């Protein structure tokens, strides 16, 4: 009887030792985001896909040990509460004992969450929030405290602005060439938010400035609805009355949906282009009652467009696994896990200071572009790095129209699968001369 008990104890003890060894060789990565919303759900999906691929390939080699990735889903509720978000991150670090953090969507919440990460000296790779000030002014001015923060997606707001203004230039040019209007009128429709203010200012200057510095067009007016406005009919009829042929949109909030729906329903004869975060999502047409065709926006991925050799395989695997088209938080989280795995591998240790140094030296191709961090640990924008895409909804599907023959110095940038921009037919009908 005693011998049997002893053997049982030995077996259990052996299992416990094996389990603890396996535990020691697991890296716990917290994926933080608003999980009830598409932005958070896609972060989780993107990270899951990367973790599965990395684990299937044998895990992460760190020095002479090999680690498996274990993901922890951390719902931040950040859409509704910044406090909840900070608490969720603290709980993930202290109770769930995560080694690294990936994610974050709403800039205000990410500012709070990254303070917590900095307190605990945890590496946090941001994959969803664009505010410049999350890194600029923190990593560069207080490096010792904030060196643990990095961003792989999206590009910072000021870089998104640069791309969106390039897209505006494409559409102004299309109006000029196809409609024969030498000095098109551009209405600016920008949500009332701090991040949108510099874009409005720059766009106003750039639209009116003569070429080649500006677009040689005319500002028809500036409308600033709330980011959560549920109806923009009055703004749209006023824009129509102002005689605009183009609407430059700066919309990241839910207002993007009523804009697309009302614009399509009223057939407003002005082509929208710029930033409309809601139009980046696969659910755009469903959300707008199929009225959002021809809306153009900055985005990070588009079906069939190979930004890098990893883009199409990523989109294919993602769609096969989750039956949805990935948004930028998905490609961001996917890329973040590979960036982390690569840095850990190069560092050869889990020592956080060494991993930070390795991350700073990152030069890795992800699904949305080449990831190289600048001195503020932000993903570098520009030709040959990460630029984003100009996408447009045509025939109930999203297609990319930029970059196409984009000339930068002596370089000409084009991605395979990018097609020409199409003016909405009712805009052509209303304005063709």
């Amino acid at each position, binding site marked *: 009887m005693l011998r049997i008990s002893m053997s049982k104890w030995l077996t259990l003890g052996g299992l416990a030792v094996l389990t603890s060894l396996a535990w020691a060789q697991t890296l716990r990565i917290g994926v933080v985001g608003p999980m009830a919303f598409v932005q958070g759900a896609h972060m989780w999906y993107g990270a899951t896909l990367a973790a599965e691929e990395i684990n299937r390939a044998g895990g992460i080699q760190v020095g002479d040990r090999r680690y498996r990735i274990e993901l922890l889903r951390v719902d931040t509720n950040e859409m509704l509460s910044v406090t909840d978000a900070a608490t969720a991150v603290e709980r993930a670090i202290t109770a769930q004992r995560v080694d690294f953090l990936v994610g974050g969507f709403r800039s205000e919440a990410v500012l709070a969450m990254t303070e917590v990460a900095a307190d605990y000296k945890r590496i946090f790779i941001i994959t969803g929030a664009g505010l410049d000030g999350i890194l600029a002014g923190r990593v560069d001015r207080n490096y010792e405290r904030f060196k643990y923060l990095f961003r792989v997606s999206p590009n910072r707001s000021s870089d998104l602005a640069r791309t969106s203004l390039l897209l505006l230039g494409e559409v102004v040019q299309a109006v000029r060439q196809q409609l024969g209007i030498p000095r098109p009128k551009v209405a600016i429709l920008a949500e009332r938010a701090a991040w949108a203010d510099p874009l409005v200012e720059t766009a106003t200057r750039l639209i009116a400035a003569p070429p080649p510095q500006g677009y040689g067009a005319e500002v028809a007016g500036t409308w*600033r609805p709330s980011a*959560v*406005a549920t109806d923009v009919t009055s703004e749209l009829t006023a824009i129509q009355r102002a005689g605009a042929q183009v609407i430059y949109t700066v919309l990241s909030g839910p207002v993007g949906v009523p804009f697309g729906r009302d614009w399509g329903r009223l057939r407003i004869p002005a082509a929208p282009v710029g930033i409309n975060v809601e139009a980046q999502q696969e659910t755009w047409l469903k959300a707008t009652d199929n009225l959002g065709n021809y809306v153009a926006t900055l985005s990070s991925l588009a079906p069939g467009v190979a930004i890098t050799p990893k883009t199409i395989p990523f989109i294919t695997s993602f769609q096969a696994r989750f039956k949805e088209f990935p948004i930028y938080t998905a490609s961001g989280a996917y890329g973040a896990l590979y960036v982390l795995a690569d840095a850990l591998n190069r560092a050869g240790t889990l020592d956080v200071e060494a991993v930070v140094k390795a991350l700073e030296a990152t030069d890795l191709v992800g699904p949305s572009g080449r990831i190289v961090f600048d001195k503020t640990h932000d993903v570098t924008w520009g030709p040959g790095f990460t630029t984003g895409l100009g996408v447009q909804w045509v025939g109930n599907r999203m297609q990319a129209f930029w970059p196409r023959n984009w000339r930068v110095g002596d370089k000409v940038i084009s991605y395979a699968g990018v097609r020409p921009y199409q003016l909405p037919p009712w805009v052509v009908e209303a304005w063709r001369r």
Partner: protein
Amino acid sequence: MFAAILVNGLVLSGIYGMLALGFALTYGVARILNLAHTAFYMVAAYALFFFLGWTGFAGAALLGVLVVLLLALAAYGLLLEPLREHEATVLIVTIALALLLQEVVLLLFGGHFRSVPALLPGYVEVLGVRVAQQALLALGFAAAVLLAAWALLKGTRLGLGIRAAAQDQEAAELVGISLSRAGYWAVGLGALLAALAGLAVAPMATLEPHMWNPPLLVVLAAVVLGGLGSLPGALSGALVLAFAEVLVVNLVPGGAFLRTAVALFIMVLVLVARPEGLFGVGFAEER
């Protein structure tokens, strides 16, 4: 610009009026300040969206109305009637109920934006201004519902009973009116109006679990401006707020985000001059 202000103001008034009507009715006859009113509107819109996957518009609309009625009557019977004497408690319970409904919708449908197809797609030009046909339908629907509610309250024994219960509960009981039954009718009618507003407005709205928040502010402002409990007051309040918003967008385009703030400021100005609201006293006397 005048035509744009006139047409857009009228259309927006119809939408706001539709929402404010049921709220005013519930308070006017049952003395319940139901902050879950616009949550019922949200449930109707989501129910319409859900049932449209199974059946046609008429069937889905009917099922949506039934869901809201059942919810409202259950909430009244289980939560509100026992607390009816304690107005502050009722207020808090209705907020809790609205948040609960929001979380249930979030759980069932997620945070994705959804839309319901318009019954009347496209637009027409009125005085040179483009107006969605669905918005005109909602405007007509709001007018028809207002007339029907008015006829029911003024021209039937049921309406008389409900109004009597609201005016003097003891006297109403003495003449054989069941207060409990009158309360159920009032809440049921209010919920029916919320559901009908949901059905009319849903094709123009974006469905998401927090969609009940912005209209609640407008509805509250409209009924307070018009005089709490007054049906014509609620509609007048909706009219004033809608036109104030449209004026701001057209006259100060760069300040379009201030549309609701300016409308609420106008409400405050009116209340300073006339604390009972535009129709507050008139309706009390009328009752």
